[in-house]
């Protein structure tokens, strides 16, 4: 295909001039064979032909060229709109690639949210707004004081398109029949599935390039030599990097390493100490939440519109506590990390990550348990309540992230430079910041079902966060001292985003859709047993339609039956096993080939030696022969 050919030419290690000629030549004859010859022989004879010889090709593909040129100009425009390109370059230039991964990750998450917002707004909100512009707000409800923060438990927001409760369950008949129930369900389901697919493919790609080929030895001399970051263009950063590299080289290879007996002991004590503190921290966190959540549960179950200001303010307590825990406890973990000694830097980072992930999962787990088990019983329009709770969490998380920038970086900088110079200027803690981003994104993913327009807030939040972090970084932080491992960290972050967090959010939404009864009085699924039954109703409705026999059959026998899932899982497991064995075999092959190369080298040097010896002895013999001839000659003469 054209694309493959173009890619193949692009990959040739030849100069541009030569490639230009290749393109015009090759497409006249069947592709693969010819360019392989060019690679092997590197003949320039063929390449020196002029474009004029191939005019027929040029005229034939004028239309193709025109189409391609249109595509290129579109992409040109896209490139000028490329978001934050200049800022990324500046950050990469001063701080290197590993810090840049945080900002790239943020940009990637922003894309998810933009897509989600567009899809939700387009398919769910716009039909509602078009059909019924004024939301049916009951009388004497105004836009109160704490609305923005609390997500309006009793106010204006509650009845708008912001939350689940504001959506109608009818089939809107305007120009076309638009079934709101199906739209709501399928939009969210398809969005989650697409997210999952995007995450899985990124994770797999990242894993393939960054992990499979990586060696376990992370401190080899070779890696240090080849790890120069070409992105860095700031003079001071370059000097600092050179310093760091020489220190690393000295520490790893030149200095004598004392026997590390005490380090191992300290390691264990540190880990135990850390884990104890970790578990007590989590237990305290969880125990604290329930008493604060109880006041909410004591409220009147049916009428949530008469809450006083004080009661509304009480609802702010939970997000406040949660967010402050999220801010403070990881700082403690980083502090413990500084005191603990680890045998390798990799283990240090992994331990820190694990503790933070466990903390966040625990917090989210308790909150979700409360939302799934307790709230549906206590409130009438419970989905909106959950949506509001999530909204509050997102807003408070935003404020606390900004505070975190202040405490984490600005204050550290002040302390490090003025009060305790021993600590020095702080480094940008990529792992902690990325985890905060992942946590924020998980909140949005859980909240999409309950509050479809939550991604809009996340978009604003990520936007502002980008600039805050950038300013904080440039003013308060220094480039990282130990380089490398940016690619592996990126793989880990994507994997973390997928595995506990996205899968968890997906399971919460799936559990809500499958098991929980939607509220009777509000929302698009009122009156149904569970959300998933909209699909059942739709399929039943399709029975009158003659052309949909196939869809009905699929629904009854594949989606509803358990045997299909069982068989599918079995087949997938078998395929995984086969691929795994193939990759094991390939690993063995690689080991054997390496051995072969080493043996070839030994053979080569052996043969060279033998050749040299032979040559020496040959010369020796010739010399002897010559001498004998001379003597013989003299003898005959004399």
């Amino acid at each position, binding site marked *: 295909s054209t694309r493959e050919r173009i890619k193949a030419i692009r990959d040739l290690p030849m100069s541009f001039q030569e490639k230009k000629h290749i393109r015009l030549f090759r497409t006249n004859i069947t592709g693969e064979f010819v360019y392989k010859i060019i690679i092997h022989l590197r003949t320039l004879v063929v390449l020196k032909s002029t*474009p004029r010889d191939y005019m027929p090709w040029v005229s034939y593909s004028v239309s193709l060229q025109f189409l*391609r040129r249109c595509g290129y100009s579109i992409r040109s425009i896209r490139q000028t709109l490329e978001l934050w390109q200049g800022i990324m370059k500046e950050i990469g230039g001063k701080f290197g690639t590993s810090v840049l991964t945080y900002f790239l990750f943020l940009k990637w998450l922003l894309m998810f949210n933009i897509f989600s917002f567009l899809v939700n707004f387009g398919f769910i909100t716009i039909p509602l707004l078009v059909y019924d512009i004024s939301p049916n707000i009951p009388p004497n409800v105004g836009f109160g004081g704490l609305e923005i923060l609390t997500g309006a438990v009793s106010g204006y927001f509650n009845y708008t398109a912001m939350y689940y409760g504001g959506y109608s369950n009818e089939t809107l008949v305007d120009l076309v029949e638009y079934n709101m129930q199906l739209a709501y369900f399928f939009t969210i389901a398809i969005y989650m599935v697409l997210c999952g697919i995007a995450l899985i493919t990124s994770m797999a790609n990242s894993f393939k390039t960054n992990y499979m080929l990586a060696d376990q030895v992370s401190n080899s001399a070779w890696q240090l030599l080849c790890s120069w970051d070409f992105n860095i263009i700031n003079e001071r950063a370059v000097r600092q990097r050179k310093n760091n590299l020489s220190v690393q080289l000295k520490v790893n290879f*030149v200095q004598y390493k004392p026997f590390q007996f005490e380090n191992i002991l300290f390691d264990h004590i540190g880990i135990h100490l850390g884990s104890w503190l970790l578990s007590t921290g989590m237990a305290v966190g969880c125990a604290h939440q329930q008493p604060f959540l109880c006041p909410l549960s004591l409220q009147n179950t049916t009428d949530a519109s008469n809450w006083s200001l004080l009661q509304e303010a009480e609802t702010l307590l939970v997000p406040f506590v949660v967010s402050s825990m999220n801010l403070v406890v990881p700082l403690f973990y980083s502090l413990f990390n500084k005191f603990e000694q680890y045998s390798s830097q990799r283990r240090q980072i992994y331990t820190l990550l694990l503790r933070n992930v466990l903390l966040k999962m625990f917090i989210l787990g308790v909150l979700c348990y409360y939302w799934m088990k307790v709230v549906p019983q206590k409130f009438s329009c419970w989905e909106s309540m959950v949506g509001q709770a999530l909204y509050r969490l997102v807003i408070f998380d935003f404020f606390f992230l900004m505070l975190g920038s202040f405490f984490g970086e600005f204050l550290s900088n002040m302390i490090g430079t003025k009060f305790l110079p021993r600590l020095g200027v702080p480094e940008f803690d990529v792992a902690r910041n990325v985890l905060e981003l992942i946590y924020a994104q998980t909140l949005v993913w859980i909240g999409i079902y309950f509050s479809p327009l939550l991604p809009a807030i996340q978009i604003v939040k990520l936007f502002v966060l980008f600039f805050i972090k950038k300013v904080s970084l440039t003013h308060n932080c220094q480039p990282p001292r130990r380089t490398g491992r940016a690619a592996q960290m990126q793989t880990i972050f994507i994997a973390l985003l997928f595995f506990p967090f996205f899968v968890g959010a997906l399971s919460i939404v799936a559990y809500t859709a499958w098991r929980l009864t939607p509220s009777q009085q509000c929302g698009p699924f009122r009156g149904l047993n569970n959300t998933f039954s909209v699909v059942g109703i739709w399929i039943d409705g399709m029975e009158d339609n003659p052309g949909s026999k196939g869809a009905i059959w699929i629904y009854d026998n594949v989606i509803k039956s358990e045997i299909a899932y069982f068989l599918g899982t079995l087949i997938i497991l078998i395929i995984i096993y086969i691929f795994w064995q193939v990759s094991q075999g390939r690993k063995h092959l690689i080991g054997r080939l390496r051995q072969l190369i080493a043996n070839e080298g030994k053979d080569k040097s052996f043969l060279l030696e033998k050749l040299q010896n032979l040559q020496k002895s040959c010369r020796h013999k010739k010399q002897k022969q010559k001498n004998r001839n001379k003597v013989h000659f003299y003898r005959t003469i004399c």
Partner: protein
Amino acid sequence: MGNKQTIFTDEQLDAYQVILTKPIVVFVGFFSPSRLHGRYHELAPHLVPMDYTKDPDCKLPLALIVNMPELKENPFRNRIVESFSEDGMGNLSFNEFVDMFSVLSEMAPRELKAIYAFKIYDFNVDNYLCKEDLEKTLNKLTKEELTPEEVQLVCEKAIEEADLDGDNKLSFADFENMISRAPDFLSTFHIRI
């Protein structure tokens, strides 16, 4: 760069686009030839013509290119420019300039980057990375921080780790093998323009 328009023939534009484009990926842009040419032009405005339809033969010397902000602080700047120039002395025509930045961009495949990285580290251009090449590389990376004995030690260790066939120097195959084990290589061997 604002109001002047670079003139290329349609065919040349097409050719540039073939080399430089890639299917759209989420966060990668690509450069248009006029933007790159703008950068090339501003290095020496009186030498570089705006009209490229007659394929002018114009080369910029090493000293000018090495002063670009993207290359100025790079310890390997001279070697980078030399490996992409046809005459080996660092004089780049516009095509070679495009070559250089496209290999150093995000889109270039790993094999291509490995080939040029090898050329860059090969100071004496003998198609092998011998101990002297590695020593020069290390000196460029650390300046005066390491003593000569330390430099020797590190280079010996590096060759020991990477050399597969035991000839005490690294061929391209050895280099590529080591690069495949360094997952960061793709992201660090990258200059944004």
